[in-house]
């Protein structure tokens, strides 16, 4: 229903808020399916950071969507036919949660049975994400890095423009500044907690990077662009993003140099389980750094552009 409203509305501001609500509902749905890590990431990214970034890019364009010039009957027909074909194909899939489906027969039992012994951490999602499926997570980190790179190439970093004194909105915002000063250390501390607690509970590098960047985005929103760029200069952010990916790849290459397969963490220490712990720690750290710097970079770039009106 929210999706239909999003499609039909022309007011982009309302659309952005509806997207935030949609992300929140999806996070609740993931919680209902017992996928806590995914729900965490969805809530942080979808209902938090994406809304802020879309609002900051809305500032650069117009608020109202232009009425479409073409007749939308043919696309509607194509979409309906494709949707019908997909629904027909999904009827053949095994039922949700069916214990006799192939995915529960071969791979999942091995993770569940051998996971605590081989990797040695209580959170099986992090074990699968960082150790068993480390290649995929490496690819994801690279995708995030490429997204930041794309925005950087397309838009570029602008010099921060001087705030005009009469239009300076954040000059006497006492309440906001005081509260933000109180909240930012707690937000950053929570982000570090989520980062290093990923072994035991819900958490990990992605969520931690997002939450860490929201602390900086909050500072940017409350104190203005000049102050925010003084805290962390924008030219450092691409370097940090590259550093994160480098840490991840470096762990893999180190394993290669030890005559083991790429990203085999048992090469990192004498005891294989210790090696797994260390490997997951380093890898998640790299992911956290990359996610944090890319999100902050995109926000700096979007917020730094003045409206070309």
């Amino acid at each position, binding site marked *: 229903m929210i999706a239909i409203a999003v499609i039909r509305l022309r007011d982009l501001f309302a659309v952005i808020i509806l997207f935030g609500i949609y992300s929140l509902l999806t996070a609740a749905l993931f919680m209902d399916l017992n996928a806590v890590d995914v729900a965490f990431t969805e809530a942080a990214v979808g209902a938090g950071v994406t809304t802020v970034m879309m609002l900051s890019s809305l500032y650069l364009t117009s608020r109202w969507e232009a009425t479409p010039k073409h007749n939308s009957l043919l696309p509607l027909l194509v979409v309906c036919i494709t949707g019908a074909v997909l629904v027909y194909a999904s009827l053949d899939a095994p039922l949700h949660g069916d214990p006799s489906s192939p995915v529960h027969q071969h791979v999942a039992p091995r993770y569940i049975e051998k996971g605590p012994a081989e990797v040695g951490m209580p959170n099986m999602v992090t074990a699968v994400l960082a150790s068993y499926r480390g290649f995929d997570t490496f690819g994801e980190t690279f995708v995030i890095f490429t997204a930041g790179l794309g925005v950087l190439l397309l838009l570029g970093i602008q010099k921060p423009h001087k705030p005009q004194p*009469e*239009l*300076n*909105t954040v*000059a*006497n*915002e006492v*309440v*906001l500044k005081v*509260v933000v000063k*109180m*909240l930012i250390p*707690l937000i950053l501390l929570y982000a570090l907690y989520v980062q290093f607690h990923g072994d035991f509970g819900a958490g990990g590098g992605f969520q931690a990077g997002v939450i860490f960047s929201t602390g900086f985005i909050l500072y940017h929103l409350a104190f203005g662009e000049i102050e925010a760029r003084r805290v962390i200069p924008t030219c450092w952010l691409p370097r940090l993003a590259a550093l994160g990916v480098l840490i991840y790849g470096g762990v893999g290459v180190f394993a290669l140099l030890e005559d083991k397969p790429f990203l085999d963490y048992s090469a990192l220490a004498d005891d294989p389980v210790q090696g797994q712990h260390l490997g997951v720690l380093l890898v998640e750290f790299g992911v956290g750094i990359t996610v944090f710097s890319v999100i902050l970079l995109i926000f700096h770039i979007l917020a730094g552009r003045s409206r070309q009106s």
Partner: protein
Amino acid sequence: MSEILQWIGGLFLLVGGVLCITGGVGLLRLPDFFTRVHAGGITDTLSTPLLLVGLMLHMELSLDTIKVLMILVFVLITNPTATHSMAKAALHGGLRPLGKTPVEQPVQNPLQGNETGENSSKP
């Protein structure tokens, strides 16, 4: 003892829920932006801690209870700030409360705008 706690927790949950609905009704039915922000802000700031206290009374005292308490404190701090920021931003953008003449251009000096805003919100 835990029976009484369950009942009190249920009462808190009920009151919090009723306040949420009241806030929703206020958001939809009130005429002006500032009244809507006021309705949403006040009822949300009260109902969320009430709901969370009701939740805490249903849990045994553990680390999770402290986490819910932290969420409660966080909401208590951030929700009024957000309401204040929204109203301040609307004032800066030139929106005036209902019943006052609208201003043609956005406010130039935030300090001046603040005073005018306070003047116009007096009955």
